[in-house]
């Protein structure tokens, strides 16, 4: 095996590097990926330069399958359209999203809950601290086959909660209808059901969802224990299915992040 494919050791990477690389590994070759500003851009670009060379990246401002040579700083950045297949607009890409062609989406959020519901609108509910609102978070989470949430966690257990204080973007289960009964997404979406949250990737671990749509710890990042992860959640996290440690970034991935994708040090400072 090429030494570039070797995995780095603790101390050789920063928490953010692991976050980006763990996220990148969620993409399979040939998939259609929707990505937002920031870390998601790094993740899809790492994936395209490693295991998923023909993965297609769509940004919600309208660029499709761009091949940026300089890291974009927003989804509407001119850099997103460089050598793109198509550069049109929102009605095009959101229409395609709703038609069910998006395999994987990367999103962020201020709060996530046990069922993968996400809050980007009000921290503490409608009388609390106002955030940016939904943007495409809601739509992408609603309609992609798999969504991957990238969230900070360490020391911020209020971000991992039993029930988000405002559901911006629906997860696997949520209150629905005039009586606000808890229903499953599959039941509510019917023929439009494409999937739902597949993973939450934090600076502490990788979380997935079981057959009941409940979050569990899948792998824990080096340097932390499953108990650490649980302590940094506001609910009683299921750690019984933990498979072990998250794979660290390879030397190739680190090289890509710092020298190829973000040599200017915009996100990888």
């Amino acid at each position, binding site marked *: 095996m090429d030494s570039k494919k070797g995995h780095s050791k603790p101390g050789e990477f920063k928490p953010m590097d692991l976050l980006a690389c763990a996220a990148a590994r969620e993409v399979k070759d040939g998939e259609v990926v929707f990505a937002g500003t920031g870390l998601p851009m790094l993740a899809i670009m790492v994936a395209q330069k490693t295991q998923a060379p023909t993965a297609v990246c769509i940004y919600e401002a309208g660029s499709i399958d761009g091949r940026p040579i300089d890291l974009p700083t927003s989804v509407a950045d001119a850099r997103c359209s460089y050598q793109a297949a198509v550069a049109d607009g*929102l*009605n095009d890409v959101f229409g395609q999203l709703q038609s069910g062609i998006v395999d994987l989406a990367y999103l962020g959020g201020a709060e996530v809950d046990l069922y993968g519901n996400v809050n980007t609108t009000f921290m503490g509910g409608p009388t609390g601290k106002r*955030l940016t609102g939904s*943007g495409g978070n809601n739509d992408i989470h609603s309609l992609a086959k798999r969504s991957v949430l990238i969230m900070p966690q360490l020391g911020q257990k209020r971000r991992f909660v039993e029930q988000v204080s405002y559901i911006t973007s629906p997860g696997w289960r949520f209150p629905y209808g005039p009586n606000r009964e808890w229903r499953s997404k599959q039941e509510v979406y*019917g023929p439009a059901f494409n999937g739902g949250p597949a993973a939450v990737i934090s600076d502490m671990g990788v979380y997935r969802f079981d057959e009941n749509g409940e979050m569990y710890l899948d792998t824990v990042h080096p340097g932390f224990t499953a108990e650490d992860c649980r302590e940094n959640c506001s609910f009683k996290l299921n750690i019984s299915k933990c498979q072990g440690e998250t794979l660290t970034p390879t030397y190739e991935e680190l090289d890509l992040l710092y020298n190829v994708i*973000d*040599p200017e040090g915009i996100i990888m400072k």
Partner: protein
Amino acid sequence: MARPKKVSLTEAIGQIKDGDMLTFGGFTVWRRPMAAIYELIRQKKRNLHLVEVNGGTHDDMLVGAGCVGIWESSWCGHELYGKLGGNLARRIEKGEILYEDWSHIQVLNRFVAGSKGLPFMPTYSAMGSDVLNPDNDMLGKAGLRDGSNPHIGKHKHIAYKEPFTDSEIILIPAANPDWCITHVQTVGTEGTVRVEGLRFSDQEVIKASKHNIIIAEKIVSEDSLREHPTRNMLGGYLVDYIVELPWGAHPTGLYGVHEPDGEFIANFFKSTRTQEGFDQWADEWIYGVKDYQEYLDKLGKERLQTLVADPALGYSKTMKRGSR
């Protein structure tokens, strides 16, 4: 006449009345009609009803200046230059503004419906989201969904069990603003509009609006644009006023022309932590200058020069962006 009138920015903005419903072309901090925003503030418009696919630096300024009565959109922030709309967040938290949250597809669909003369569009998006929770129907709770205001739907949404698949889908009411203001790279003398780069949701917001103001970096000959009609976005018969105003999108970015002025936006964002902070910022950059030319002079040629894009790439290769 199916041709727009070429006017000054002051004259164009003078047509807009207190209480009108407005929307804008562009996307977050890209291709926003910022000169028009400053002029709306200078002309002290009040009680404006904003409905936007997404907000950004421009609408947070209008909110901070007290021009906005109702804000409806999916988002407000400054991308990497400021994590939320500070004025909007403060006024929402203090209950000083009426607001209505939507998802991106929902509010886009309001314009798609509006542009096609339809009363609603259906979408599967956001079922299960609190944007559809009746507790968060803010205009309804304010008693504004009684049918008396043509800009406010009688329902925020309808959950409809549709007869083709017998499953539920969400119907979202159309939006038809009084005005849409859009900044573009070029417009022809007879109003043909060309946008370079992404079109975002410009076609939908423009066609849904009753009146349109197009502010262009440059007014060019009609014939030159008509040589390639597949590259144009809009005919002049849909445009009321055209204004020529180079750099009119600053501090937001303009594909192929200039980058966003990130430092300027970040400073603006910092000022919005308090109303006093914003007021001070506005005194310096809006009220403290007579017009847009004076604003550009104050910025200085050197600063603007650092933002200039490489037309072949669409962006700047030389601007310092990161830590390395």
